[in-house]
């Protein structure tokens, strides 16, 4: 068992107050209200669970650090992620909190107190913040609650900012006081014997606080089992727990029902919520079998449209600003390799990072609004039946849909999913969706190689091909999700048991905070990788340097020089080197250079091909000159490089290959390591090669080549 790690902070550090509660108790709203606008987001050691802290002013001179512990219904755990709650409270990975504030939902008191009882059993210094009192029909009798619970109970409303000063005062006093007495939960006698046996098998670190060891034994009896994935459980302890369960009694039910009996016996009346006519009416519409579905489709359409279309002007603006900055820099710097490094490598790299911000901010605007309103749970409820066919749960729907705009914000949106396995599976599949960066490549190839024609009367073939590529990517991603859920990501299915919180009006502060935090995390943790990759790629495309042309060279000579520079660069040499590998797909080395260039972002393929074909990098997917150059390009035997079959093979390759360093960077950040992005890159590229091979060679056998 790990011993408490020495704190790196100074001895007189601010007291640490942990905020703990069930999901949907308004814990995050309370955290935001108490800490104002500053919060720090990091990760817990060893797992990709976010650790959010902020500063809480207790008086003019005293400040506490407030820790937002991830929402939980219980301390019992079966995975390292769920174990985080207990480890944090015990201070096994970081300094232990000096006080725990349990945020309880006043309209669902018994379930909130179930968590509080476990904390009291563990003898933590703790208080109960009874939240959402504004939703009760009549004010609760908190004195009576405090009296039997033994811990201070403070009625508040985080949403309405009711009594938050009172809460701060109680926190200040409770920090100095003793822990409340242990609650007298009526556990059966037989269970005490099991507890004794488990306590005897505990490692010394667990028994450090004698008053706490019996409660830890109850935690072990609830959590340890044949199938758990818990970390750092010593074998003797595990053996003692399994032996207790093998005696045949229903220990889980004994523990849980004893706690609920203790709560239900003392709660004066069942907590009744006040009438909320407007919220109830909205709720009835949102859950109506017909209207509810219509509202859902409308919201999803608006969200998707915003990512796809509304983000565009902002992206264009960022690109112009980056271009302008590059030109300004080029104007003041002496021409040469340093100027190129700064304008194309560094300024271009920064542009490659911030260009994602409009879509990230827009997606998290929608996710923030939907989460705060309680609508995300409805989306999962409505979509679960469909997502289940992929081995996923309903929560995967929003990330998957966002993937059709851009994989980067979509991968970030997997944060809202509760199970790590489902998160990984979604992240591995989302990059297969037809994102907007693939569209310029498709547009160019379809326009260049498939002359406008019509099928079945007046259906345009070019449009049909575009739809076909979308359907293809959906089909492949469904298959990939299914295949991975049976192989690399096989595991015990996490049951779908989700609370549907009542509809609430979203708080702008919560939404703004979520957008800001996501954008900042992207910039600080994925931005650096993207910037470094851009500079590296620039270097590969720019070295070794050719002798520069004289300043008065004619434009045609400049374009030819650029093409020569590119083809003799390291990236060009790499394109040559991989030609044997991509030749069976119908690609020559020039396409190979384009594939290398497109790793920065898929749409860069278009401008790279402009450079390769000696017509300059200023082309776009609508440029007639680029289309003509592609059509005119021939192999050494005089046959055209680009046949419709090669075009199809190339589009299939683009549909499937993981040519996006930004996606890999953000997957690295979300999974906390290089293993999953490496797997993503290898499997997608292999799949792309295989499918393009089948299309090209199959087409040739059929005489289409």
């Amino acid at each position, binding site marked *: 068992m790990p011993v408490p790690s020495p704190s790196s902070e100074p001895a007189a550090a601010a007291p640490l107050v942990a905020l703990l509660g069930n999901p949907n108790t308004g814990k995050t709203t309370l955290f935001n209200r108490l800490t104002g606008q500053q919060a720090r987001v990091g990760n817990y050691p060893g797992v990709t669970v976010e650790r959010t802290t902020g500063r809480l002013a207790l008086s003019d001179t005293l400040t506490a650090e407030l820790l937002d512990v991830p929402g939980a219904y219980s301390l019992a755990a079966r995975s390292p992620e769920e174990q985080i709650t207990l480890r944090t409270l015990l201070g096994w990975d970081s300094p232990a909190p000096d006080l725990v504030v349990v945020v309880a939902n006043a309209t*669902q008191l018994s379930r909130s107190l179930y968590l509080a009882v476990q904390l009291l059993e563990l003898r933590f210094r703790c208080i109960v913040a009874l939240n959402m009192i504004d939703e009760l029909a009549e004010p609760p009798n908190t004195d009576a609650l405090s009296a039997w619970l033994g811990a201070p109970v403070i009625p508040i409303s985080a949403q309405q900012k009711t009594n938050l000063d009172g809460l701060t005062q109680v926190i200040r006093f409770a920090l100095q006081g003793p822990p409340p007495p242990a609650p007298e939960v009526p556990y059966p006698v037989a269970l005490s014997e099991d507890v004794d046996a488990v306590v005897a098998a505990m490692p010394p670190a667990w028994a450090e606080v004698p008053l706490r060891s019996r409660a830890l034994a109850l935690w072990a009896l609830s959590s340890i089992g044949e199938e758990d994935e818990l970390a750092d459980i010593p074998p003797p302890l595990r053996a003692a727990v399994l032996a207790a369960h093998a005696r045949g009694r229903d220990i889980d039910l004994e523990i849980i029902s004893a706690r609920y009996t203790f709560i239900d016996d003392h709660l004066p009346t069942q907590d009744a919520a006040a009438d909320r006519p407007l919220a109830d009416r909205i709720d009835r519409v949102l859950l109506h079998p017909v209207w509810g579905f219509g509202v859902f489709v409308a919201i999803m359409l608006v969200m998707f449209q915003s990512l796809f279309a509304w983000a565009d002007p902002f992206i264009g603006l960022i690109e112009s600003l980056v271009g302008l900055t590059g030109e300004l820099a080029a104007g003041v710097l002496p021409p040469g390799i340093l100027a190129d490094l700064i304008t194309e490598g560094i300024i271009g790299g920064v542009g490659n990072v911030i260009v994602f911000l409009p879509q990230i901010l827009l997606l998290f605007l929608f996710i923030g609004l939907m989460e705060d309103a309680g609508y995300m749970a409805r989306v999962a409820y409505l979509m679960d039946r469909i997502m289940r066919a992929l081995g996923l749960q309903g929560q995967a729907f929003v990330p998957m849909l966002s993937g059709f705009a851009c994989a980067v914000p979509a991968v970030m949106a997997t944060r809202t999913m509760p199970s790590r396995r489902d998160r990984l599976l979604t992240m591995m599949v989302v990059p297969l969706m037809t994102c907007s960066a693939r569209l310029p490549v498709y547009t160019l190839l379809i326009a260049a190689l498939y002359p406008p024609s019509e099928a079945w009367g007046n259906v345009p073939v070019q449009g049909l091909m575009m739809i076909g590529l979308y359907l293809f990517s959906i089909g492949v991603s469904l298959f990939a999700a299914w295949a991975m859920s049976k192989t690399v990501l096989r595991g015990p299915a996490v049951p779908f*048991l989700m609370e549907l919180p009542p509809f609430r009006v979203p708080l702008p502060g919560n939404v703004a905070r979520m957008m800001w935090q996501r954008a900042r995390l992207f910039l600080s943790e994925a931005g650096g990788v993207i910037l470094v990759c851009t500079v590296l790629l620039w270097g590969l495309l720019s070295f070794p340097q050719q002798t520069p042309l004289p300043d008065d060279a004619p434009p045609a000579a400049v374009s030819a020089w650029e093409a020569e520079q590119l083809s003799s660069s390291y990236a060009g040499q790499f394109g040559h080197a991989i030609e044997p590998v991509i030749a069976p797909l119908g690609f020559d080395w020039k396409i190979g250079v384009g594939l290398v260039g497109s790793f920065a972002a898929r749409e860069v393929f278009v401008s790279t091909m402009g450079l390769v074909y000696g017509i300059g990098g200023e082309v776009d997917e609508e440029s007639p000159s680029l289309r003509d150059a592609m059509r005119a390009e021939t192999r050494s035997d005089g046959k055209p490089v680009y046949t419709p079959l090669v075009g199809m093979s190339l589009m299939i390759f683009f549909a499937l290959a993981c040519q996006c360093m930004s996606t890999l960077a953000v997957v690295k950040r979300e999974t906390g390591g290089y293993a999953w992005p490496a797997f993503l890159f290898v499997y997608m590229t292999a799949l792309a090669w295989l499918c393009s091979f089948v299309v090209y060679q199959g087409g040739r056998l059929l005489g289409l080549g």
Partner: protein
Amino acid sequence: MPRPLAELPLNTPATIVAVGGDRAFRRRLLEMGLLPGTTVSITNVAPLGDPLELTVRHSRLSIRRSDARAVTVQ
């Protein structure tokens, strides 16, 4: 007459008799207050026929039909 929760008609309160199923899921159900003796009702069904919406202890939970078979009510 005891029967699986999944077969309970809409908006018909019933009392939980037993909770079964995979241990981790069962523990989660019990911890969320679906204990023997607790009143539960199915208050809505998703448009595609699954999952179900339960009302228990003043809260609404979503659960798949297949998982709801583990809960016996009467």
